[in-house]
């Protein structure tokens, strides 16, 4: 089982987000980027597949600040190859990214392509199905478990539906899956192990092919949402807010 995993760096939502002077994009100057959490789950699922079926895990990531750390961490977890796609497209949209990656993956041999089911900065789409369509491959998501049968060239996957119900589906290999959560909690790697990887791992670099970057939609403006129906905020020490809450609960008849 050779699995390709696509990783993206996305803005850290814990940080304050600011809009740039154009009013159409985030101010990237102070933007802290973190690995898209569901992409990390895609990596975990790929590593679980490798443990069960052998084969290899190749991680591809688009160049971005902090991306090397994410690639070294992926290597520390067990990825066999880590590849950085170098490009000069700042803030490239999903539409373009799908085109670009469809060309990039043709340089690799793979049975499966896994990536997170979505990213917080998706505006014009969701990467996995867009990539699948570009590659003329079947797609399914949001997936929470993958069983492969390399001999039969199929994968059996669990897809989350609603109300805790899941569906089980079979797809031919190769296919593209949008991962929502790995079957097991993410494995932990120590900082020292990642540091060790920094010394021994070679991050391969691959230039991004040139693709048309025009998204067919126009962003007029990006802004912080107006806050409607905002909560009444309670202030004070933990003891004081606890007393205020108790009074509210008593008044509402909950206590």
């Amino acid at each position, binding site marked *: 089982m050779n699995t390709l995993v696509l990783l993206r760096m996305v803005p850290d939502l814990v940080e304050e987000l600011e809009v740039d002077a154009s009013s159409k994009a985030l101010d990237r100057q102070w933007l802290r980027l973190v690995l898209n959490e569901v992409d990390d789950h895609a990596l975990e699922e790929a590593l679980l597949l490798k443990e069960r079926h052998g084969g290899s895990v190749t991680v591809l990531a688009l160049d971005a600040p902090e991306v090397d750390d994410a690639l070294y961490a992926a290597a520390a977890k067990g990825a066999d190859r880590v590849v950085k796609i170098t490009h000069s497209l700042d803030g490239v949209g999903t539409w373009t990214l799908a085109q670009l990656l469809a060309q990039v993956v043709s340089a690799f041999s793979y049975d499966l392509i896994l990536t997170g089911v979505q990213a917080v900065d998706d505006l014009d789409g*969701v990467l996995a199905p867009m990539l699948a369509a570009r590659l003329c491959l079947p797609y399914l998501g949001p997936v929470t478990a993958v069983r492969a049968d390399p001999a039969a060239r199929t994968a059996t996957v669990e897809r989350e539906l609603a109300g805790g119900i899941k569906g089980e589906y079979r797809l031919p290999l190769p296919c593209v899956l949008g991962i929502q959560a790995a079957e097991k909690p993410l494995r932990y790697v120590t900082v020292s192990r990642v540091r060790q990887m920094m010394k021994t791992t070679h991050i391969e670099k691959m230039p991004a092919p040139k693709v048309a970057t025009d998204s067919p939609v*126009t962003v007029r403006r990006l802004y912080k949402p107006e806050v409607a129906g905002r909560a009444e905020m309670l202030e004070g020490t*933990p003891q004081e807010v606890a007393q205020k809450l108790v009074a509210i*609960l008593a008044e509402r008849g909950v206590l």
Partner: protein
Amino acid sequence: MTAQEVWVLVEHRQQRVADITFELLGLGREVAQALQAPLKAVLLGHQARDLASALGAADAVLYMDHPALTEVTPEAYARALKPLLQERRPRLMVIGLTNFTLGLGPYLACELQWPFVNFCKGMHVEDGSVVITCLLYGGKMEAEVELPAEPGLIGVMPGASPADKGRDERFPLVEEVLSPPGLEQQAVQFLRYIQPEAADVDITTQEVLVSVGRGIQNQENIALAEELAQALGGAVCASRPVIDQGWLPLSRQVGKSGMTVKPKLYLALGISGAPEHVEGMKNAGLIIAINTDLRAPIFNVAHYGIVADVLEVLPALIEAIRGKKGG
């Protein structure tokens, strides 16, 4: 030539039209009116024609029947819709962003090379252009996006419009459309539904829910939430990251993939309020949120909010409740 029609994709399962469809019909009607265009519901399925009777809010229903359309998979739906969309070129096709149809819009947009705007929470028409408001960055930002005057696809988040606006007793005109040849040769095969394991606690029936998110920090701290739930006579539930860590079973998950709850009291502890979570709890009677981030979107749906570390407030709150009850 693009027909000025607004189409809404019908989502249904087990012989029932899903609420999201009525939300989309309500929203679609407003846009159709502004464009002076007809609103059409697109119903794909197998032996599902009767469902058209629920779609009276639409001027007409386009119905396609094929066994391959019994279950929703992006591939089968895209293959069924692509020739229809190419032939009739509606101004807009509106698709719900649920787990069933999440991948369909992008897949179809790529196949058709049509523009697609995702995570829509509202739309309106300005000088003949369709302007869409999208919720991004976990609800921390909004974008206003304009579609070109060509056919386009839109993915709409649940809750964008009230479902009641899209319900109508009228019986709509039904037009049967032929399925494209070769539809049965789909790659993705549905095998079965997997029902959730019998839960120790049914969180959908609880009147008080203490819900924990990432801010609870570790599994040991869930005991504190349990203590609070016990003091309040309720149960503990959680947002996605806590479930993914394996700290609580899947049956306790609130949100898009998990349960939709409507308790009298919902205490959101260390939950940021991503749209996927809010979808499952926004109709609770009283929502109280505690989070360290003043800008967390959870404070936009909560009635009361406290900017604090849940681990500092929780012990004080448990003590205060016990004091009140004891007194």
